[in-house]
C-alpha cells in the first residue's frame, strides 16, 4: 500500500510538472519518464526516505534540459522546484479536509479505511494544481510562455532560491514527522511559515510579471513611435522632392512652349533630353515603393516594415514593396507576428547586402482564406533547406541560424501559421501563410 501511494505521488509530481511547463509529451515519452521516475523514486526513497522526492527535482531538470534542446534554463529549474513545492503544499492543504471528508462519508462503513485519506491526499495535488492553473491562465492570459522565458533570469532566480529554501526546511520536518508520527507545534509553525513564504513568492512573481510586462509594452510603444516618426520624415522628404519637381515642371513647360511657338526644334529637343527625360528616371526609383504602406492599416506592422525598409535602403538594397490590397488585421498574435517578421526581414537584409544585385522583395497578399507574407532576397550560393532551422546552423557565419530556429519556436504556438521556404541559386524566399479563422476577425 505504501508503494502504491508513493507511485501515485510520483505521478502527481509528474503531472504537476507537465501542466506548469506545458511541454508536450507523447504517450511513449510519458510512460518512459514515469517508469524511470518510479524506479528512481523507489530506490532513493528506500535509501533516504522523504528526501527521495528531492532526487525528482534532478529528474525534472533533466526533462527540461532535454526538452529545451540540451540547454538548462532558469525556467527549467523553476518548473521542477514548482512541481515539488506545489505537490507538498497542496497535499498539506488537502490532507485535513480529505481526512475529515473520508471519515464523514464512510463513518458507517466498517472496512479498513486507514489508507484511504492518504490515497486521496496523494491524488489531490495534480487535480487542484490543474484547476488552479486553468483558472489563472483563463483570467490572466498574458501569463504566456514567451514572457516567462524572456524575463526568466530576473524574476525566477529569487523564486527558485526561495523554493529551494522551502524544500530544504520543510522536508526534514516532514521526515521527522513521518518517523515519529507527531508534529510539534514548533515544527507546525515553521511549516506554516514556509507555506506563507511560498505564497509570497508566487505573489512576488505576479508583481514582477506585471512590472516587466508594462515596461516591455512601453518600450515597444516608444520604438513604434520612433519608427513612425522616421516614416513620416521619409514621406515628407519624398513630398519635398515632388514639390521641387512640380516647381521645375512649370519652368520646363514654359521653356518648351517658347521653343514650340518659335519653332526652335533644337531648343525643344535640348530641353526634352536634358530636363524632361531624366525626371522619368527619377519616378522609377523604388524608393517610392514604400508609399504602398498606406494600404497597411496595422500600425504595429507598418512601423516595423517602414523601419526595416529604410534600414535596407540605407544599406543600398533595392527594396520592392507590394501591398496591393488594403490590410486591416493580421491573422496572428501581433507580438509573435512582429517578432517573426523582424527575424525574416533581418535575415533577408543580411543576405541581400552580401550579393551583387542587393534586392529585397516584401509582398503582402490578402486572399479569401489566407494571408501571405512573402520576404524574398537575392542570395549567394544555394541554401541547404533541410538544415536551415537547426539551432545555430547558418549559411552565412554565426548567429544566422538562431533566428530561424526562433521563428520555428514561435510558430509552434501559432497553429494557423505555415511557413514556406524556397531556395534557388540566387534567390531565397520565405512565405508566411496565415489561415483565416472565423473567431479572430
Amino acid at each position, binding site marked *: 500500500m505504501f508503494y502504491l501511494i508513493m507511485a501515485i505521488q510520483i505521478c502527481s509530481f509528474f503531472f504537476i510538472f507537465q501542466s506548469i511547463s506545458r511541454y508536450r509529451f507523447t504517450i511513449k515519452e510519458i510512460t518512459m519518464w514515469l517508469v524511470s521516475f518510479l524506479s528512481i523514486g523507489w530506490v532513493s526513497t528506500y535509501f533516504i526516505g522523504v528526501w527521495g522526492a528531492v532526487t525528482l527535482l534532478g529528474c525534472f531538470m533533466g526533462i527540461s534540459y532535454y526538452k529545451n534542446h540540451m540547454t538548462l534554463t532558469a525556467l527549467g529549474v523553476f518548473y521542477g522546484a514548482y512541481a515539488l513545492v506545489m505537490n507538498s503544499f497542496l497535499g498539506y492543504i488537502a490532507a485535513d479536509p480529505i481526512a475529515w471528508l473520508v471519515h464523514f462519508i464512510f463513518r458507517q462503513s466498517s472496512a479498513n479505511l486507514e489508507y484511504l485519506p492518504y490515497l486521496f491526499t496523494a491524488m489531490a495535488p495534480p487535480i487542484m494544481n490543474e484547476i488552479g492553473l486553468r483558472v489563472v491562465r483563463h483570467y490572466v492570459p498574458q501569463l504566456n510562455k514567451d514572457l516567462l522565458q524572456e524575463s526568466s533570469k530576473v524574476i525566477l532566480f529569487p523564486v527558485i532560491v526561495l523554493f529551494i529554501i522551502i524544500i530544504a526546511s520543510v522536508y526534514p520536518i516532514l521526515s521527522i514527522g513521518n518517523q515519529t508520527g507527531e508534529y510539534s507545534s514548533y515544527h507546525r509553525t515553521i511549516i506554516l511559515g514556509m507555506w506563507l513564504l511560498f505564497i509570497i513568492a508566487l505573489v512576488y512573481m505576479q508583481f514582477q510579471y506585471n512590472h516587466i510586462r508594462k515596461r516591455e509594452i512601453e518600450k515597444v510603444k516608444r520604438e513604434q513611435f520612433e519608427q513612425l516618426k522616421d516614416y513620416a520624415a521619409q514621406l515628407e522628404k519624398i513630398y519635398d522632392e515632388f514639390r521641387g519637381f512640380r516647381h521645375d515642371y512649370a519652368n520646363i513647360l514654359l521653356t518648351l512652349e517658347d521653343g514650340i511657338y518659335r519653332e526652335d526644334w533644337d531648343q525643344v529637343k535640348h530641353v526634352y533630353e536634358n530636363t524632361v527625360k531624366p525626371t522619368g528616371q527619377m519616378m522609377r526609383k523604388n524608393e517610392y515603393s514604400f508609399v504602398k504602406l498606406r494600404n497597411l492599416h496595422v500600425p504595429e506592422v507598418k512601423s516595423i516594415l517602414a523601419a526595416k525598409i529604410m534600414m535596407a535602403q540605407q544599406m543600398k538594397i533595392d527594396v520592392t514593396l507590394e501591398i496591393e490590397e488594403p490590410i486591416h488585421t493580421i491573422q496572428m498574435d501581433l507580438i509573435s507576428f512582429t517578432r517573426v517578421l523582424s527575424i525574416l526581414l533581418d535575415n533577408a537584409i543580411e543576405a541581400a547586402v552580401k550579393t551583387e544585385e542587393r534586392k529585397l*522583395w516584401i509582398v503582402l497578399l490578402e486572399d479569401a482564406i489566407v494571408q501571405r507574407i512573402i520576404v524574398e532576397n537575392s542570395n549567394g550560393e544555394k541554401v541547404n533547406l533541410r538544415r536551415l532551422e537547426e539551432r545555430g546552423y547558418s549559411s552565412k557565419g554565426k548567429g544566422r541560424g538562431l533566428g530561424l530556429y526562433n521563428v520555428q519556436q514561435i510558430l509552434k504556438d501559432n497553429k494557423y501559421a505555415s511557413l514556406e521556404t524556397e531556395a*534557388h541559386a540566387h534567390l531565397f524566399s520565405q512565405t508566411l501563410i496565415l489561415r483565416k*479563422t472565423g473567431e479572430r476577425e
Partner: protein
Amino acid sequence: MNIFILEDNLIQQQRLERIIKALTLKHQIRYRNLISTAKPDYLISQVEQAANHQLYFLDLEIKNEKHTGLAVAKEIRKKDPYGTIVFVTTHSELAPKTFAYRVAALDFIEKDLPEEEFIQKVEACLLIADERRTIPVSLDLFSFENKYTSFQIPFSDILYFETIDIAHKIRLITTSKVLDFYAELHEIAESDERLFRCHRAFVVNLANIRSIDKKNKLVLFDHDESCSVSRRLQKETIERMEAFRRKEFSNDGS
C-alpha cells in the same frame, strides 16, 4: 495563337502593334489575330471565341473603365487558364509578385523603358508564348486545405511529406521548397491516390519516386532527396509505384 492588346492610349497601342508585327516577322512567329482594343469588355468577349494559345498585353489602368487591369486579368483567367498574360504599365503601378501570384502573369513591361529594352522584353514574351503554344503548360495542382492551413502546389513538384519533432506538424518537401504546416499525415495520404504512406512518418508522391533502395529501406527521389520506407510496406510501395507507372505509360501511349 491570338494576340490581344488592351491599351487606351492610341499612340501606345499603335507602338506596341508595330513592335509585335516586326518581331513576329523576324522570328517567323505565326499568329491568327492581333486584336487591339481600349475596351476591357470587348476583349473579354473575344476570349471565348478562341480555342488555342493566347497572349495578352494588358495596360493596368484604363481610363473611364471600372475594370482595372487586375480585374480584367482575373476575368481572362476564368475563361483561359493557360494563356500568357503580360502587363504593360508605368512603373508606379508595378507589383510583379502580386500579379504573378494572382493571375500567373508572365512579366511586367514598363512603358517608360528605353526603346531597345522595351522591344527586348516584348520579344522575350512573344518567344515564350510561342513555345507554350506547342508545349501545353500542365496545371496539375495539389490543393490542400484544413482548419489550420490552405495552399496549392504543382503536383509534379511534390517529393514527400514527413512528420517533424513538433507534434502534429507536417513538413512538405518539394523540388525547391520546404513547407511546414499543422495537419495529420493521414489527411494528406487520403487526399490524393498518388500519395502513399510508406512509413509511419512519411507520405511519398508515387509519381516522383526515382527508385527504391531495398537494402537501406529508402525511397530515393531526384535532387538527392530520400526518405525511409517501412519494411512492412516496402513491397506495397513498389507495387503501387509500378502500377502508377504502367498507368502513366498507357495514358501517354493512347
